[in-house]
Structures are given as C-alpha cells and as structure tokens.
C-alpha cells in the first residue's frame, strides 16, 4: 500500500535549548510534545497514536503514562538518529490503516549536560551478538565514520577540503538561526586547521553535542485540512538497515542506496524535483555519502558535488540543512533525525529564516543515517510536499 497523500505533518517543534542541565529528559519530551501540538492547533486529548525511540526514558510505556496520553497505537522503533524519520513513515501507515488519526512523535536528550561525546566508547547491552567481536577494538561514533571516510577517500579521491565544504555550508546557514549552538562562519581553512579527532576527521567535521529535542504531529488528511497551518503532505518513505554483511563489508555506501529509491518511487518524483533536502550530518562524510547514495550525484562524485558552496541556500544547486544542521545547530541526544524533518517542514511552509528560505519550496526530502557507519546503521528517507 502506498502512503502517498494519506497523512500530513501538521505540527513541528524544535526545543529552543541547547543546554538543559535543569530539566529531565522526560520533561524535555513533554515540552516538545506541547510545542508541536500547539503548533498544529491540537491538544494532548486529540492524540491517539504515540511514537518514540531509544532516547525516551522508560520507552513507550513510561512516556505514554507520563504524558497522560490515551492512545490506541504505539511504536517504539529504534534505528538510532534515523528513528524519527521512520516514525513519520510508520505514523502515515498507521493513519492510512485507520489505527490512529493524530500521531505524536517525540525525542529529547541531554548528552551535553551528561558529558557524553562521540569519542567515548559505545556502551552496548548484554547478549548483543556483534559486540564480543567489536567492543574490544574501541569503536566510537567518530572513528567508525572516520574509517568510512578513509575508504571513500581511497576509492574515490575524496579530500578533506571537499568534506570541509559541508561544514562551511552549515555555518553559513547557522548564522541566521538564533538558537543554533555554533553561529560563527567558518572557512575551509578553519576546518582543516582544527585538530584531528580520528584520522582523517577533524573536530569541525563532527556535529555538536547538544541537549534538547523535538516533536512532530502527523494527522489524517481531513484533520490537517481543518487546521490553520500550511499543508505538508507525506509523499513517500523508505527504510533500510545496513550492517557488515557477514564479512562482505563495504563501507563506501550507506543504506540510502536502498531507502532512497523506495521513497522516490512511492513519491513519484526524482532527486531533480527536490527543492530542499535535510541530510543527516553527524559528520561531514555522512552528508557526502548520503547525497551520492540518494542519487543527487554519481557515486564517487560527492566530493565535487558538495564543494564550492553548492549546499548553501541562495548560492548552490541543492540547499541542505538550512537551520545549520547537526554540525552547527543541534544534535539532541546524539540523534538528529527529528530536527531534519522539522527544518524540511519549515521550508515547505515558507517559515524558514528569510535569509535561507528556498523560493517556491514545494517538494522537500529528509534523510537520516542512525547508528554507526562502520558497524550497523538505519537509513530512512522521507519525501514531503506542500499542497
């Protein structure tokens, strides 16, 4: 069953805080939920479907209880930072199937206040099948993405200068976002001169560690049309987990090579139709590889595609992450997928900052890569349209 046009994103809210030492994670979820429902013009009592992922303390059961929800459909799918993009898809399916009418998706976390970062070793629960063969070797977020970068450079000649352009574009956009964690404009040289964290990734190739969160409200068409907000319709979705393939490991591509075509086919559009894209930017390499895998350029040409300002709104061919992205604005709970959808909704509504608003932005894409690029990650692609 295609979900094209069967659900609308009616509410979107990004928590304004980037450091929240005095709020619990659950409180941040609640504030985000309230913000998104108010944005839509709906109330907690209208919610009959709830979606959250691994950042939600106590999972679906604690959160439904804490938020006082009376729901008939829940979904706790966790595919790392891409979860919330998948949640929009799952919510659309549930709505299309009549399982709920108003779906609330929340995410929040405070890794900054809790002192977490991407250079620390991953903590994984007991009985996970892969960890005995990986954890002794010290995989972290940054050295996993660094290994993918190293191989991409080896096979395709991608350079640190090209990767730096992804950060430069993010910094151009973040100047206009008063909530962004980093607002200073940086140059390619600034990125290259920042310290190496894990070869070949520099400090400025890495996203911010921020507290905060976000929420979305997905509703059935009749409800969306009864509300006062601009109409943003779900056109197509695709999902794909990718792992190490039993040892036939290839770190030069992401699950976007599978999730992207599924979403484009369902939406009935091509990459050339996308006016704005939110592209997961945990690291600069993440953007470059996803753009290739989603078909915005040929495989191996990502370096050339991202260079020379091509991702800067008003300058380049494909404006991305006009909020400043995870690299400059926000990466709450080290999971940025929901912020990717929120900025795409702002663009489609014409509510992005005027300095970065894409003209005639009628079709937008949000894509997430959650987890580790050199172990296992989830890919989720979402295509939306203003009607």
């Amino acid at each position, binding site marked *: 069953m295609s979900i094209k046009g069967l659900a609308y994103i009616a509410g979107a809210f990004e928590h304004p805080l980037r450091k929240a030492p005095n709020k619990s994670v659950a409180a941040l979820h609640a504030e985000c939920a309230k913000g998104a429902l108010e944005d839509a013009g709906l109330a907690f009592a209208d919610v009959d479907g709830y979606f959250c992922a691994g950042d939600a303390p106590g999972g679906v059961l604690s959160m439904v209880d804490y938020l006082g929800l009376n729901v008939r459909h829940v979904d706790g799918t966790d595919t790392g930072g891409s979860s919330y993009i998948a949640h929009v898809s799952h919510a659309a399916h549930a709505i299309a199937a009549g399982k709920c009418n108003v779906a609330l998706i929340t995410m929040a976390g405070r890794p900054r206040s809790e002192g977490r970062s991407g*250079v620390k*070793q991953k903590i994984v629960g*007991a*009985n996970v*099948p*892969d*960890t*005995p*063969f*990986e*954890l*002794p*070797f*010290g*995989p*972290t977020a*940054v*050295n*996993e993405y*660094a*290994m*993918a*970068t*190293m*191989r991409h450079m*080896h096979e395709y000649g991608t350079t640190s200068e090209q990767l730096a352009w992804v950060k430069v574009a993010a910094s151009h956009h973040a100047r206009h976002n008063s909530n962004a964690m980093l607002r200073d404009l940086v140059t390619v040289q600034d990125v290259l001169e920042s*310290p*190496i*964290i*894990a*070869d*070949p*990734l520099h400090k400025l190739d890495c996203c911010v560690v921020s507290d905060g969160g976000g929420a979305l409200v997905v509703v059935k068409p009749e409800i969306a049309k009864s509300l006062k907000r601009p109409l943003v319709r779900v056109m197509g979705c695709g999902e794909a987990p990718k792992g*190490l*393939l*039993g*040892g*036939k*490991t290839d*770190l030069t591509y992401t699950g976007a090579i599978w999730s992207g075509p599924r979403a484009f086919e369902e939406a009935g559009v091509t990459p050339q139709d996308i006016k704005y894209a939110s592209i997961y930017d945990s690291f600069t390499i993440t953007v470059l590889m996803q753009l290739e895998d989603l078909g915005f350029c040929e495989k191996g040409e990502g370096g050339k595609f991202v260079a020379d300002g091509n991702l800067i709104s008003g300058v380049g061919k494909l404006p991305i992450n006009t909020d400043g992205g995870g690299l400059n604005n926000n990466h709450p709970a080290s999971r940025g997928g929901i912020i990717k959808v929120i900025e795409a909704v702002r663009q489609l509504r014409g509510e992005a900052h005027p300095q970065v608003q894409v003209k005639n932005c009628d079709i937008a894409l949000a894509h997430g890569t959650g987890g580790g690029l*050199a*172990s296992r990650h989830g890919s989720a692609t979402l295509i939306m349209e203003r009607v």
Partner: protein
Amino acid sequence: MGTQYQDRTMAIPEIHPEHKEYWDAAAEGKLLIKQCDSCGEYHYYPRVLCPYCMTEKTTWKEANGTGSIYTYSVMRRGVSYAIAFVELDEGPKMMTNIVDCDLDTVHINQKVKVVFKQSGDEDNPGSFVPCFTPA
C-alpha cells in the same frame, strides 16, 4: 617521532555459548572463522546459521591469519589506537586493531598478520582478542 603503539585496556568480550571454541582457540593464538558446508562461503563474526544461505551446517576453520588493511583510523584523543577492518586471505573483513608498530605508518592495502592481545587488565584479565600487525 611517529605514534608508537601503546598497550590499552580493551573491553572484555562477552562469551556467548556458541563461541567457546573461538575464544579457546584465541587463547592458543589461533583465529577461527566459520565456513558454510552448504554454500562454501566464509563469514565473520561467527554465527550458528550461515548468513548467506541460512543453513545450520557450518564448520570452524583456522584462518591463515594474514590479510590486508581495508580501512583504518587512528584515534587522536586520549591513548592513540588504530581501529581497522582487515580483509582476511579467506575473504571476510573483520573489525580489529593494528598493534605493535608506528601507527602513523598504517595504510590501506598494508599486509598484516594476526597477533593476539589480552583484553581487560591485570586485576581483571579477559579473553585474548585478534589484533593485526604489519606482516
């Protein structure tokens, strides 16, 4: 100059029942990998079902213990260490560390051989795990 390898406390792997032979062999300096009796493919990490044809008929094989570096990254925060994927002569790629060398000289396609390092520390020693060093 360079960045000489330093010993580092490696996380102790959890021993799952179906991997006892693997860890026993590791303590004797042998790297075991699984080969499928049905489709003939090697896989890594070891499973009870072949991930390619899903048969339960798989056999432990001692690997040559040599291969080449597929990719790597040297961590520059804290104690430097080189995480890598090594492509074994038998085919599978495996996550590992490159050890006992100048980490600044590690490179893709470098020939390496297995060497086992003990996880944990003196107070809490764990299993030996397969690392690689320039061949």
